[in-house]
């Protein structure tokens, strides 16, 4: 057993001259649920395709379950589950036929579990795939990815077209599967509230690099928004080292810092003789702060 389910080191991926992934390093231990968060075009899907051996890295190494992702054998692929962003399956097959067809590729398929999921998500077994709604197609793709209880489950925007009830079912199934602490899950999403509920860890991606990768709790404990109010106007030169975003309006400033501490707050209080309020931020707010214009002064 290797320590990491996913071990990406200095991964670079270029399409022609366009660099999509620029030196990505990401190590995910077994048993963790990690959310991958990033804007469209940040490189999430490209990273996921490299993990699955669907794209060949320009340079760097990508290892999943201890094997080079580009050279995965059937035995390893049977331990993986994947839900793509866009689901395309044979439109003329019925739901039941598709499940039977796909399960035949796996020696480790769990029929009772896949039937349970089909029932839970109320999928019409005798309907053809083609006319199913987008949400139903995505549910079916989830059943197909979960049916063999994969050791490593990778999902690219799995909940984008699910309604809130189905999303909740889906999150519960993920938690249920991961509750033995042997299954590893990586899912990319835009919906931060889902990630906040189930993920223990979060990887934030921006412009082809991982900006942050740690426990979600650590991120929330450390990233804070400070509101400063001083007796006289703050100077043009006002800045806080390492700040993610600084906004100054006369005697008021808003500074978002990546790791707030009482020492930092005391220091700022003394240095600018300021009253400081410290605000907690949720994941969406942190994400927005990381993508905001870094500084703005208006006096």
């Amino acid at each position: 057993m290797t320590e990491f389910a996913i071990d990406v080191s200095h991964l670079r991926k270029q399409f022609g001259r366009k660099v999509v992934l620029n030196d990505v390093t990401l190590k995910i231990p077994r048993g963790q649920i990690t959310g991958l968060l990033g804007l469209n075009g940040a490189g999430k899907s490209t990273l996921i395709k490299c993990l699955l051996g669907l794209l060949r890295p320009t340079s760097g190494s990508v290892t999943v379950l201890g094997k080079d992702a580009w050279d995965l054998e059937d035995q390893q692929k049977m331990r993986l589950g994947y839900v793509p962003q866009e689901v395309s399956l044979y439109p003329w097959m019925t739901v039941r036929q598709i499940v039977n067809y796909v399960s035949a590729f796996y020696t480790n398929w769990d029929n009772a579990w896949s039937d349970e999921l089909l029932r839970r998500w109320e999928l019409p077994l005798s309907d053809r795939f083609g006319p199913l709604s987008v949400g139903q197609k995505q549910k079916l793709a989830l059943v197909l990815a979960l049916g063999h209880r994969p050791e490593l489950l990778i999902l690219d925007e799995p909940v984008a077209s699910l309604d809130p009830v189905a999303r909740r079912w889906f999150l519960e199934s993920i938690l249920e599967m991961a509750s033995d602490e042997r299954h590893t899950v990586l899912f990319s999403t835009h919906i931060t509230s889902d990630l906040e509920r189930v993920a223990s860890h979060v990887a934030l991606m921006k412009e082809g690099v991982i900006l942050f990768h740690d426990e979600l709790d650590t991120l929330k404990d450390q990233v804070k928004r400070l509101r400063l109010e001083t007796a006289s106007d703050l100077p043009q030169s006002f800045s806080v080292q390492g700040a993610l975003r600084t906004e100054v309006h006369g005697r008021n400033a808003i500074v978002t810092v990546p790791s707030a501490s009482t020492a930092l707050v005391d220091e700022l209080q003394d240095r600018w003789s300021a009253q400081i309020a410290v605000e907690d931020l949720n994941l969406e707010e942190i994400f927005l702060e990381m993508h905001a214009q870094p500084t703005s002064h208006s006096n």
Partner: protein
Amino acid sequence: MQKPSLTFSVHPSSGVPIYRQLIDQVEAMIAGGRLVPGDTLPSVRDMASELGINMMTVSKAWAKLEMTGLLERSRGKGMVVAVPRNEGSTIERQAQLKPLTDQAVVRGLQLGLTDSQIQEVFTSSLQEHRHD
């Protein structure tokens, strides 16, 4: 003794991490007397599946509460509310209480109460909670 009435609620999209929300709720339940020494807390697995959250989050909250001495691991029972230990000198324990009384005093002054009126509130609260 399992308390089925024990209800936790979490808000995943709050800026406060979920494990801290759980810690705050246990602390409040103990402070409010809804949890007393010897009461068993739900298991990590039950909490996680009931609230639909990651098990690591619950075990982290329980572990932190164990570290601060509010909970203790009991063989066969899981996590139970610990009997409070009177550690530290009187001065140290008074210093722990100070921030809470400061809040109460400031609020009392804001409400326009006199010193003796504030002290009356403290005295009556002491009478309510002292059982020995």
